[in-house]
């Protein structure tokens, strides 16, 4: 196991910086990972140019899912909605900076999936792993 895991992930898990809910928001979305019960909700506020000015996440689950969400929300501040929609799995993994096996990958990608589904304005049934592949 990577030391980064201990430092970055566990630190962010224990001391989240973007945990919370936003009201009002321009969009919100939530979903869970049925394999492990991880749950993530994101709330995003954008300005007139569709630039993210404030965002937050809430939910529960393992350290990877929660810390990924925290890092992702930090990252999208100042990004346009189009930039958010264009985010990929690799972008998120770069943020995390650690190697993940296939199962933990699903934990890590949950927040990105939820965020992109919200950004695209998808319905609950339209969410699929294709969003993050």
């Amino acid at each position, binding site marked *: *196991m990577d030391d980064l895991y201990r430092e970055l992930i566990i630190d962010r*898990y224990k001391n989240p910086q973007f945990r919370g809910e936003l009201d009002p928001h321009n969009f919100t979305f939530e979903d869970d990972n049925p394999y*492990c*019960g991880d749950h993530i909700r994101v709330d995003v506020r954008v300005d007139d140019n569709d630039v993210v000015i404030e965002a937050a996440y809430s939910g529960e*689950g*393992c350290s*990877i899912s929660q810390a990924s969400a925290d890092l992702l929300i930090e990252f999208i501040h100042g990004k346009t909605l189009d930039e958010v929609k264009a985010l990929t799995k690799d972008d998120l993994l770069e943020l995390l900076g650690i190697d993940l096996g296939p*199962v*933990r990958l699903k*934990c890590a990608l949950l927040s990105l999936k939820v965020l992109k589904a919200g950004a695209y304005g998808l319905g609950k049934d339209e969410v699929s792993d294709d969003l993050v592949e």
Partner: protein
Amino acid sequence: MAITDYSIAAFDIQKIWADFPILSREVHPGVPLIYLDSTATSQKPLQVIAAMDEFYRRSNANIHRGIHALAEESTAAYESARERIAAFIGAATPREVIFTRNTTESINLVTQSWGRANLNPGDVVILTEMEHHSNLVPWQMLAQERSLRLEFIPVTGDGLLDLDEYARLLTLDPKMVAFTHMSNVLGTINPATEIIRMAHEIGALTLVDGAQSVPHLPVDVQALDADFVAFSAHKMLGPSGIGILYGRKALLEAMPPFLGGGDMIKRVELRSFQSNALPYKFEAGTPAIAEAIGFGSAVDYLADLGMEAVEQHERQIITYALERLEEIPGVKVFGPAAEHRGGVASFTLPEAHAHDISQILDADGIAVRAGHHCAMPLHTKFGIPATARASFYIYNTLEEVDRLVDGIYKVKQLFA
């Protein structure tokens, strides 16, 4: 890990370790493997690996129809494996032993062949709340197709089946009681003989999910008086890709075929066919030949150890493991006391998610599983999304339990 623990007398652990090459492996540089995930799948001894290797190097041919020497050797080896497996579970005849892919396919064979032929709208099937998805979903599929009513024997707070409620459910006149002999989450060993006796008294048939019991306990299908028993080779030292459905001959004979194709027929015309005799009627197409041979080798290995000794060994480990786990502050172990369970301990920690527990333990080479273990309804019932599960088999030692406990303390420290 180095084996310095000879306190377990049921058999010679050093000899066993020498048979399992993977146990000497380092999972990370300098970090040896401590494999505590045998409930998901067991490791394989050299004897099993070599039997399949040897088959491919010397005898490989398709079976049943061939006259040449290789085809005869292969057929004889395949059928000999069936005979040894039949003897291992005490079947009356090898014809009652059908090769499938795994426990899951075995159960689907029953729901789709026996179930479609015998169950009608409104018929009741009794399951339990502790079933693996493999003994739930096939019945749900059939229930939807046939408008069946599914009822569930509840699980008590300490992880046992509520047999009073079972007795009450039997008044609904169920046609089938399908239950796991041993829970893969709680480790609970259910009183199968009694459950079956009660079912038979009111004329219901029984299906025993033996995926966890056949590998870990002495199981005699005739002593149990079971109608169907399903299990998988990969959980009992054998290869992936092969499992067994045991069924009473008279039941199997009356059932329509499951899959159609080569080998399961006696005669074929363009628009009709006649089924073959047992067991071939249920083995369509080229079977898992090498895997059957490996499976035969696996039951030889277990029979040599003796299933009483296997059970005793695991009872010692789980007794110790429960003791040690319960002394860790905050650890919650699900399931009954050691005398009612096999070598499985699923637990949670308040400070860390099961995934995190598993990942941190992995850094020390300790392989445990984390998740719902294909038993979501049971986890829902206990109000938890996931547990970490340590499970034990013939090659595990008390010292490995100590390492697990050390690892859990590390997790607690990291997430404190």
